[in-house]
């Protein structure tokens, strides 16, 4: 067997107390496309960042062409021939393609001036070789994501990259663009470049790779030639963990329909989204990152406009609504990014918890501290929030911050509560408290829509599970039908029938 172009042996990496990688080994060979798969949070991105020189591994060795190396910066990685292409390229949109490729290392003429002619010639040559009809003088401003990736690839080629890592390069591409990218990948492969392809799309992985590695929870759980894998096997490896955590969704009486959406469409983001959520019900919206789940929630809440479709709360139709109108109609939204969207970090817990109900804490147009305190303490007590409510929220832990966000929305007494990744980055104890609270709220008759990438959480908490894949609903599963496999099949865009016969999973209702 040939020497690997790059070889990682027993890589460990922790961030704080979270162990992200626990002894990962991976070899990339010249002239081979190696696909890396795994659920969100399996550690793929961290591994990519280590190879890019953005993170240092805590432990483990790292060889390029048989030589031990240590990357302390991205430029060191590039110098030995390792280049990374990210999902969203980082380019200078105001400058030309050629300038982007050669920034900070432009060729010079004898007089020390930048040799634009040489620069353009070199980039034109690469564009030609890749069969792409762009001109080196064209500005990056206005290029599609696919074309921007081509610019990044050419940048890598001018570094004479021997290893090219692509982190979900197809996530934002159309079918045509994916085809072109794969032609480029194929050409690079035949030139002896070692490629690492990170993707969630099974069909793509099987179409272009020679080798597949699956990661789960920071470890490699399977690796081998692509011909040895089946789709079912990959999915089973990706999700196969025990359901050890306890998810206490108690039984609640399912009542009237609270939210009904019909044919929601937002061009380029999602379409054909129809579903309903009833009183006392927890409906999970599952899917991979980027499937459009958060975007659907934002549209329902009135943050982003809809191109077409109907949102109905009870009997009321919301059209062209603002978040304020959504709140009045009885929707509460707990966003995913607490720090950016959910909380004012410098303000106290009390202030944060009553931001949504300022009108109710007013007296004569001024905020009444006593009322603020009453409302804030009612909800924070119920959530068993630690810390004093007159402390700023930035001193609280992630779990407690999440509780403050929940308290803030519960104070509006919503009919429908939308929670986006309610337990991401939250410790286990706080996690079960959040779960208990959601369950309790459902029991009291609230309708809950929960977006989550945590499959055990989805299966444990939800009465019904809607699965999204690339902007469309691909499955609706009853609690009894849902397994990690069925959800994963729908989330990766596999047809339900395949999941049914081959993975022996109970088929859900086909959407």
């Amino acid at each position, binding site marked *: 067997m040939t020497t690997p172009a790059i070889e990682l042996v027993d890589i460990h990496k922790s961030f704080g107390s979270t162990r992200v990688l626990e002894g990962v080994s991976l070899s990339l060979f010249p002239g081979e496309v190696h696909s890396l798969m795994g659920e969100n949070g399996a550690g793929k991105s961290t591994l990519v960042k280590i190879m890019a020189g953005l993170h240092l591994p805590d432990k483990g060795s790292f060889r390029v062409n048989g030589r031990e190396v240590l990357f302390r*910066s*991205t*430029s060191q990685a590039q110098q030995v021939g390792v280049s990374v292409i990210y999902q969203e390229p*980082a*380019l*200078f*949109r*105001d*400058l*030309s393609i050629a*300038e982007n490729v050669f*920034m*900070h*290392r*432009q060729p*010079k003429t004898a007089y*020390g*001036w*930048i040799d634009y002619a040489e620069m353009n010639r070199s980039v034109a040559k690469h564009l030609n070789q890749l069969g792409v009809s762009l001109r080196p*003088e*064209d*500005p990056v*401003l*206005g*290029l*599609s*994501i696919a074309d921007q990736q081509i610019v990044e690839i050419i940048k890598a080629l001018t570094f004479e990259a021997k290893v090219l890592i692509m982190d979900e390069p197809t996530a*934002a*591409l*159309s*079918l045509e663009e994916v085809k072109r990218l794969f032609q480029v990948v194929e050409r690079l492969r035949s030139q002896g470049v070692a490629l690492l392809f990170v993707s969630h799309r099974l069909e793509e992985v099987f179409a272009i790779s020679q080798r597949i590695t699956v990661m789960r929870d920071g470890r490699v759980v399977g690796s081998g030639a692509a011909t040895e894998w089946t789709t079912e096997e990959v999915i089973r490896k990706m999700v196969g963990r025990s359901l050890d955590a306890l998810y206490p969704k108690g039984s609640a009486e399912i009542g009237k329909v609270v939210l009904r959406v019909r044919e929601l469409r937002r*061009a*380029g*983001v*999602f*379409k054909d989204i129809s579903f309903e959520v009833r009183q006392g019900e927890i409906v999970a919206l599952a899917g991979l990152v980027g499937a*459009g789940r958060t975007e659907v929630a934002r549209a329902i809440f009135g943050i982003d406009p809809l191109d077409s479709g109907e949102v109905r709360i009870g009997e009321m139709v919301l059209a062209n609504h603002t978040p304020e109108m959504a709140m009045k109609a009885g929707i509460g939204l707990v966003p995913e990014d607490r720090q950016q969207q959910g909380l004012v970090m410098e303000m106290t817990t009390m202030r944060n918890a009553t931001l949504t109900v300022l009108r109710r804490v007013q007296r004569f147009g001024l905020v009444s501290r006593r009322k603020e305190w009453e409302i804030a303490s009612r909800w924070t007590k119920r959530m068993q929030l630690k810390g004093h409510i007159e402390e700023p929220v930035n001193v609280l832990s992630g779990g407690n911050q999440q509780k403050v966000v929940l308290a803030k929305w519960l104070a509006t007494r919503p009919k429908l509560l939308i929670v986006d990744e309610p337990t991401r980055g939250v410790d286990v104890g706080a996690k079960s408290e959040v779960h208990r609270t959601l369950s309790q709220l459902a029991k009291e008759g609230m309708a809950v829509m929960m977006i989550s990438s945590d499959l055990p959480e989805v299966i444990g908490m939800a009465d019904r599970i809607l699965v999204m894949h*690339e*902007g*469309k609903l691909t499955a609706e599963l009853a609690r009894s039908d849902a397994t990690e496999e069925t959800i994963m099949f729908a989330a990766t865009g596999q047809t339900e029938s395949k999941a049914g016969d081959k993975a022996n999973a109970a088929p859900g209702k086909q959407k």
Partner: protein
Amino acid sequence: MTDQGKSIVANNNLWVGTLVRSREASLVLLILALTATTNILNPRFLSPQSLKDLMLNVSIIALLVLGQTVIILMRQIDLSISSIVGITAFLSGTLFVNHPGIPNLVVVLIAVGAGLALGAVNAALIAWGKIPALITTLGTLYIFRGADYAWVHGRQVNAVNVPGSFLAVGTSTCLGIPLLTWIVLILLALFSIGLRQYRTGREFYAIGSNPGAAVLAGINVNRRVATGFLISGVIAGLAGALWLARFGTVDATAGEGIELSVITSTVVGGVAITGGVGTVVGAVLGALLLSVFSSTLVFLRVPSFWQQAFQGAMLLLAIAMDAYLAHRHALRSRVKWSHV
């Protein structure tokens, strides 16, 4: 820079696109149209004397615009230049007063050195102290001016104390163009080449266009930003010395308020306030346009208080046009995205 212009119209040739294909070309057209119109209404507008006045009036602003362009290209801003001009103008004057016979060049070098030192204060606070440029230079604008007032203490340097050979820079001409203007034109050429033909120049654009990507490309962003503020300080120091040559009489108020004209000119000249786009030639044409515009208003006997209002209107017009074009562009790129 031409490829910036080409950029915006890559696959669209509406008239708006054509108009902005080159900001420089449209500025030249505007300046010519304005001059021609005014000259028809008042033929004295193009008399040699008034042309010379026009060139002298625009020169110091145009000089400061060079430094400001480098700064704004990096998404930064330097408000403190007017105070640096004030200090270095009076410094140059007192050098002549206290050291009769001191060579002109030495005075200029000392003024430039002082500008460099004051620019270094900005550079250190912004690049390493991580205080936003807007706040830092607003602070130093007041600090430097305050120090100027304290030091000058009501004194004044008069033209009689300044050697005639020095004042000649602000009065005599060569080939019909004032020496002062020649200095600006030479520096304009150097800056233009520097920003176009050298790596450092392109890196200024890169930093303003996408600071994160600039770091990934291996550019030392802190050092470049610091360099920008040093350049701006040096230019302001030189402008201070030339201020003395042009006006002869200097007190503590020299240059007050000029920073706003400089920034307006730079932005009207097509240097995007969000960084990454623009040229020094465009910025200097922006200064010329505003200057011609002010003269026009004078010649047409428009009350002087209207001048500022017109200047402000042009600034907003320029920014609105840039924003409109960027918005249209964003819409087009979004359409390309949609394929789900």
